[in-house]
């Protein structure tokens, strides 16, 4: 029977809840659609594939809270609701509505597991009770609701203990405490972040093997495990931050099936319907095990397990939630077997986390029970070594091997110290220690990492010393162990091309291997591949003779600056190619995404996106061209390799890509066209900085070239700062340092499609924050609100000119600055941008698809588009950034030229203030109606803040300020309370903040070291407490508009 079903998505990408839910959610919607159900999607994240119009009948991109969900439910009145595909957010929402009685009252059925199951799995106390009933061991623990109880609990259990807050994402606020001081601190943040103010204090079982099982069950009690996984890092590091292998590597058959049986028993006892993730710990020294936790829904791990095995968990789980039994659902990868089949792998899978430390070089890199990774990569290989090295290559952090220049500089003692604490660099440090002659046994004692893994790493290091380029057997061995050509070249002081040629000479080339979920027991119908050096090429099952093929290069792991938006464009490129009758080949190595779902392309290569793999695939598949403009900077960076291979880059030519990316060439073109640009300098040597300091017009922006998302960007205001800031940077003529004049004006962003003659502009966006805040972190308005029409015309003119001159064929993204009648261009990227999915949805123009068609040779005219700007809609769409500061405990939360946001949400309405209100709500901001506002404003901005303070007062907000600001406000007759600074006696700014005195914080960055440090403490605290805090006055003014709009005053007669 046809039903109307509402699916809840997971909202914005934050650490702990990333693109995996776009993948799972889109699979779920696909199944519902195939079965003919009417679908409604509730998700605030515009960057996702699942929010495309083609995935659901109606999409509500509204703030993901109970209030808005209820509005949608009342409007749509669905028969059922699916909440297990949108992560913790979705589950929490549906629980709220259930306990409130809303769903019952409105007769909306929860499809899949019922609330009792979810509750029993998630509530620690109920869960423990159930485990005790089943005789399943759980580490001794106590549930506490305050710090004092926490300390008592820890004393009775015995330190070290692990603190786990209830109902948080990715273990936010938790950690391992080995002494009372640490315990107090962790309890404090844990209780604060738990939505029910509750933590579990648990015996630490650090050092155990950490094992996960992905279970799937139907309502008839049929259940299977799809996959198990083992962490390289023993218990203690969050599984999202761990290096993980599938299947388990050190469990024998009895361990494996014992833990499997326990996982199934728990799943059945809980009566979970659909996917469930079970985490366990196995003592490496005995048969003792413990259950850690259960997630009764699809998760990051289920996405990983789906990609690792080819078994599409979310799809099958959807069927199960709709009442199908596992033995009647066909396994889509074989189309011969049924979902009631446990995949058998004939390869090894490795998952490696991707961190944002390139953006936050000073942040604490220690890993613990709180997840910090922004993304991950996965690899499939014939050996564990190869799997590990493939991941390292695929991180896109400049590694081509277990070799990290900064660890090479460390002494053995330093390394020994370092590896005792888990961090993102630990595996590189271990490799380095082995180079220094340390034995696996010694390292095992320091890290408790299983000997098996250490032996394998040691094996890799030993091979490094035995390289002989003239020995075919040796070269084959190296390739089988996963050595990249570039690592071999580096280790032999040769060059990559030579290594590759030598390899080809010996006929050692990468072979296509298939992922089929059944270890070749059944013929598979699905073209899901990886590369390996063993054996022979397997047939490409989907390859029809004479059909033209196009390779689309994906965007790799999710990181700050290159997120899910690029996966969105990649998927659209695939769709457009398929519509043209072309066969599509996708390469990407991010297991969370839609683009690595084998049903989205005709052939999927799950591989690291690097020159070596691209060349292997080009050689093998001989596509008629390659699309590099959709996979972000990752893909564009490979243009040269492709050009040199002789295969055509589709769309903008390599020469023209280079012209727009190379500063000198680009500047030359701007000069020819008479387009203004902030003054810019390119420096190849440190001494050039000193020569330049006096002639610069401060402030200036400094940044290394070819960067993503404003990596290491900084604004400096004087000579001294410039010298200090540049002293820490490494740059050379090869990768020079760029210095730009900084203009404090309005920022404008444009996405356009050019065919070299016509340039069609789907939309122009205005950034709410003035220049200086990274475009990815500023609030973007579409249509613009304050942009003069003559400036807009000028923008259109310049975009058109540049599209024609640079012969752009496909996408281009441009950023402009406008100040006092002058329009400057900041940059042009000849590729997809972060704003494409947002604009696509708001304009209903399929931007990436049109661009793909243009890249394939159509003209805009042929496609029905012409030069100029697409008409604006009659509503405001606002893209609001979302940050993960509470997961990154020492990252500076102030906005600046360095990008910090991890995701985005949408606010949309005809009225600007309402649109922004929705956007901010969706971002997770608490919007107060009244209360105390703290103002601490640096001198540079004091004048600007006056009006803000006045208007806040009119809304009956009480203003508080520290000395300087208070003095200034009083001088201007604004009433305010003087607050002690952080270092002054309590009650001071920090104690008041902690006690919940402030409702809004407005704080601008100041330059003095001390005041900056105090400001940092304030901002960190505010971020952690999720208070509305603003470091840009532009955002604060916009927020004020929202407050004013929401304000309903009272007046005496």
């Amino acid at each position, binding site marked *: 029977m046809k039903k109307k079903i509402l699916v809840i998505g997971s909202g914005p990408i934050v650490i702990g809840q990333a693109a995996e839910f776009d993948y799972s959610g889109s699979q779920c919607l696909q199944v519902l659609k195939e079965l003919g159900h009417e679908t409604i999607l509730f998700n605030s994240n515009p960057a996702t594939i699942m929010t495309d119009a083609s995935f659901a009948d109606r999409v509500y991109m509204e703030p993901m809270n109970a209030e808005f969900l209820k509005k949608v439910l009342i409007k749509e009145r669905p028969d059922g609701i699916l909440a297990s595909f949108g992560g913790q957010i979705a589950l929490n929402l549906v629980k709220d509505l259930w306990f409130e009685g809303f769903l019952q009252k409105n007769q909306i059925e929860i499809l899949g597991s019922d609330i009792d199951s979810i509750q029993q799995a998630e509530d620690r106390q109920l869960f423990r009770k159930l485990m005790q009933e089943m005789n399943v061991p759980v580490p001794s623990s106590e549930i506490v609701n305050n710090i004092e109880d926490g300390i008592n609990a820890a004393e009775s259990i015995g330190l070290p203990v692990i603190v786990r807050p209830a109902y948080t994402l990715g273990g936010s606020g938790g950690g391992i405490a080995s002494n009372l001081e640490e315990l107090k601190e962790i309890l404090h943040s844990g209780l604060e972040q738990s939505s029910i103010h509750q933590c579990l204090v648990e015996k630490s079982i650090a050092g155990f093997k950490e094992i996960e099982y992905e279970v799937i069950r139907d309502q008839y009690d*049929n259940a299977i495990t799809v996959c198990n996984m083992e962490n390289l890092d023993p218990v203690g590091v969050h599984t999202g931050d761990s290096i993980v292998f599938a299947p388990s590597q050190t469990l024998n058959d009895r361990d494996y099936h014992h833990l499997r049986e326990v996982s199934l028993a728990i799943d059945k006892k809980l009566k979970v319907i659909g996917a469930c993730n079970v985490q366990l710990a196995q003592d*490496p020294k005995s048969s003792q095990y413990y259950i850690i936790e259960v997630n009764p829904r699809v998760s990051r791990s289920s996405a990983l397990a789906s990609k690792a095995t080819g078994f599409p968990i979310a799809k099958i789980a959807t069927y199960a939630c709709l009442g199908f039994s596992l033995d009647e659902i066909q396994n889509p990868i074989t189309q011969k077997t049924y979902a009631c089949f446990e995949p*058998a792998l*004939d390869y090894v899978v490795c998952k490696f986390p991707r961190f944002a430390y390139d953006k936050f070089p000073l942040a604490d890199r220690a890993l613990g029970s709180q997840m910090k990774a922004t993304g991950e990569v996965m690899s499939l290989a014939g050996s*564990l070594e190869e799997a590990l090295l493939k991941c390292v290559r695929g991180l896109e952090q400049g590694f081509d091997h277990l070799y990290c220049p900064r660890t090479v500089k460390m002494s053995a003692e330093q390394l020994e110290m370092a590896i005792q604490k888990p961090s993102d660099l630990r595996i590189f440090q271990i490799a380095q220690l082995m180079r220094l002659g340390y034995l696996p046994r010694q390292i095992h004692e320091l890290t408790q990492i299983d000997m098996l893994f250490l*032996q394998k790493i040691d094996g890799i290091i030993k091979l490094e010393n035995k390289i002989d380029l003239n020995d075919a057997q040796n070269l084959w061995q190296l390739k089988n162990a996963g050595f990249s050509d570039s690592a071999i070249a580096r280790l032999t002081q040769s060059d990559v091309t030579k290594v590759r040629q030598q390899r080809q000479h010996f006929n050692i080339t990468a072979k296509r291997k298939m992922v089929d979920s059944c270890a070749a*027991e059944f013929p598979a119908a699905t073209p899901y591949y990886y590369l390996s050096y*063993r054996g022979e090429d397997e047939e490409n099952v989907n390859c029809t003779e004479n059909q033209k093929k196009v390779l689309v290069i994906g965007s790799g792991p999710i990181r700050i600056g290159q997120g899910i938006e690029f996966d969105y464009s990649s998927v659209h490129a695939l769709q457009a190619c398929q519509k043209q009758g072309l066969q599509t080949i996708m390469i990407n190595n991010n297991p969370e995404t839609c683009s690595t779902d084998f049903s989205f392309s005709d052939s999927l290569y799950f591989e690291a996106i690097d020159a070596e793999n691209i060349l292997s695939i080009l050689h093998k598949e001989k596509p008629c061209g390659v699309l590099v403009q959709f996979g972000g900077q990752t893909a564009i960076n490979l243009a040269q390799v492709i050009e040199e291979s002789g295969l055509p880059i589709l769309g903008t030519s390599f020469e023209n890509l280079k012209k727009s990316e190379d500063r000198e060439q680009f500047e030359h073109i701007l000069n020819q066209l008479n387009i203004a640009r902030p003054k810019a300098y390119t420096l190849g040597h440190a001494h050039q900085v000193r020569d330049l300091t006096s002639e610069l017009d401060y402030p200036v922006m400094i940044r290394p070239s070819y960067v993503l998302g404003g990596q290491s960007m900084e604004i400096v205001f004087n000579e001294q700062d410039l010298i200090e800031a540049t002293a820490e940077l490494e740059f050379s003529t090869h990768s020079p340092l760029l210095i730009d004049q900084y203009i404090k004006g309005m920022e404008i962003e444009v996405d356009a499609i050019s065919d070299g003659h016509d340039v069609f502009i789907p939309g122009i966006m205005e950034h709410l924050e003035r220049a200086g805040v990274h475009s990815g972190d500023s609030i973007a308005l579409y249509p613009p609100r304050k942009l003069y029409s003559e400036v807009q015309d000028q923008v259109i003119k310049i975009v058109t000119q540049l599209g024609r001159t640079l012969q752009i064929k496909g996408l281009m993204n441009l950023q402009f600055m406008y100040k006092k009648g002058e329009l400057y261009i900041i940059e042009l990227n000849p590729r997809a941008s972060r704003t494409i999915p947002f604009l696509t949805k708001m304009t209903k123009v399929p931007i990436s698809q049109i661009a793909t068609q243009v890249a394939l040779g159509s003209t805009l005219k042929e496609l029905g588009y012409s030069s100029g700007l697409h008409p604006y809609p009659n509503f405001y769409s606002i893209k609001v950034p979302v940050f993960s500061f509470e997961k990154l405990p020492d990252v500076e939360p102030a906005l600046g030229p360095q990008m910090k946001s991890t995701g985005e949400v949408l606010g949309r309405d005809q009225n600007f203030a309402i649109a922004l209100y929705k956007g901010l709500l969706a971002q997770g901001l608490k919007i107060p109606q009244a209360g105390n506002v703290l103002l601490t404003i640096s001198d540079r901005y004091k004048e600007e803040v006056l009006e803000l303070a006045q208007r806040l007062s009119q809304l009956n907000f009480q203003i508080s300020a520290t000395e300087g600001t208070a003095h200034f406000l009083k001088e201007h007759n604004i009433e305010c309370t003087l607050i002690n600074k952080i270092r002054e006696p309590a009650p001071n700014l920090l104690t008041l903040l902690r006690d919940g005195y402030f409702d809004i914080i407005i704080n601008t960055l100041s330059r003095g070291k001390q005041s900056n440090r105090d400001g940092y403490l304030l901002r960190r605290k505010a971020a952690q407490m999720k208070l509305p805090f603003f470091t840009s006055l532009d955002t604060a003014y916009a927020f004020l508009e929202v407050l004013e709009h929401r304000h309903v005053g009272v007046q005496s007669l």
Partner: protein
Amino acid sequence: MSNKGYLILENGEIFTGELWGEIEQQQSPVAELVFNTSMTGYQEIITDPSYHQQAVLFTYPLIGQYGVHSSHSESDRVQCSFVVVQSHCYEPSHCQSQMNLDHFLKKNKTMAISGIDTRRITQLIREKGSFKAMIAHENCAKEELMKEIRKAKLKDHVSNVSTRSVRSYGVEHEKHVVLWDFGHKKNILNQLLAQNCKVSVVPYHFSAEQIMQLCPCAVVLSNGPGDPTELVSVLSEINKLKDRQIPLFGICLGMQLMALAAGAKSQKMHFGHRGANAAVRETLHGQVMVTSQNHGYEISAESLTNPLRPWFENVNDQTIEGIYMENAAYFAVQFHPEFTPGPKESSILFDLLMQLIEDKNYEKENFGHWLRTNSHWASC
């Protein structure tokens, strides 16, 4: 001397690899090459007597990572003729590991080869059916060996692996079960002992009379190697036992023999079922279980005639995975409820057997009814 060697297939294909395990010998015996898709359990698999005169190829590429432990063997020696892997591990890591697999194979004088494209050979077997093969040192005369392979006749499987004399275990227990040994896995015995049974393991050539003299309350027909039709003499003994109304429970080869005894037909499968991931459906209640499997022959569904009925079926290819007799305590499964290696959930069949032994009220002529209404399944 180099350890280079060949895997030589009946169809003429030759793969080069590295020999390990027993390397003193120049060549392995000829064996039927079969693949197993289990990702763990290599020790249990190679010591399973059902693999007698077969060679095992592991589709999982990393074998030997957790070593070998004496208590994990399914018999007292390595049973398969040789082992084919993509790679194996010399330095295992597990607290129970007593030695590495290489050492274990050496002790058992079993040859092995690594560095083989196991996926390719699996596909070959999948497409062409299982075939004979051997491994040999690179110095060998390949042409001669090929002839030897083609000539080789693999027979007398069960007589080589069955016990030579009666052995009793758990003698303190009351319930007495005879385990009719066609090449049993140790864990069948262990499962019965865990159910507090006294178990007598008897040779395959034992007659019904000899078995009845032991006064068992049930007879379990074990797994074992080879073609069930090689054991014609056993069939009539099975029928005699049935007529004596003693509960009969068969596993794997045991099931095939019971089916043949009841008039059904067996046939060689294209390449068999060998792995730890096969789902079977209990057709009376619809419950699905994931099972451990290892068989190269099947009972054809069409050949079942009343009162013999299908009980379990394979979810993927619908082959017969279990049978029962409507009017006698006569039931059997094609998979391995004793697991090791593999999933444990079907071990409830041993509970079922115990329930049957203990149930004084069931009407012997109405076994089908007993099974259909059994609370054990109903509770699933």
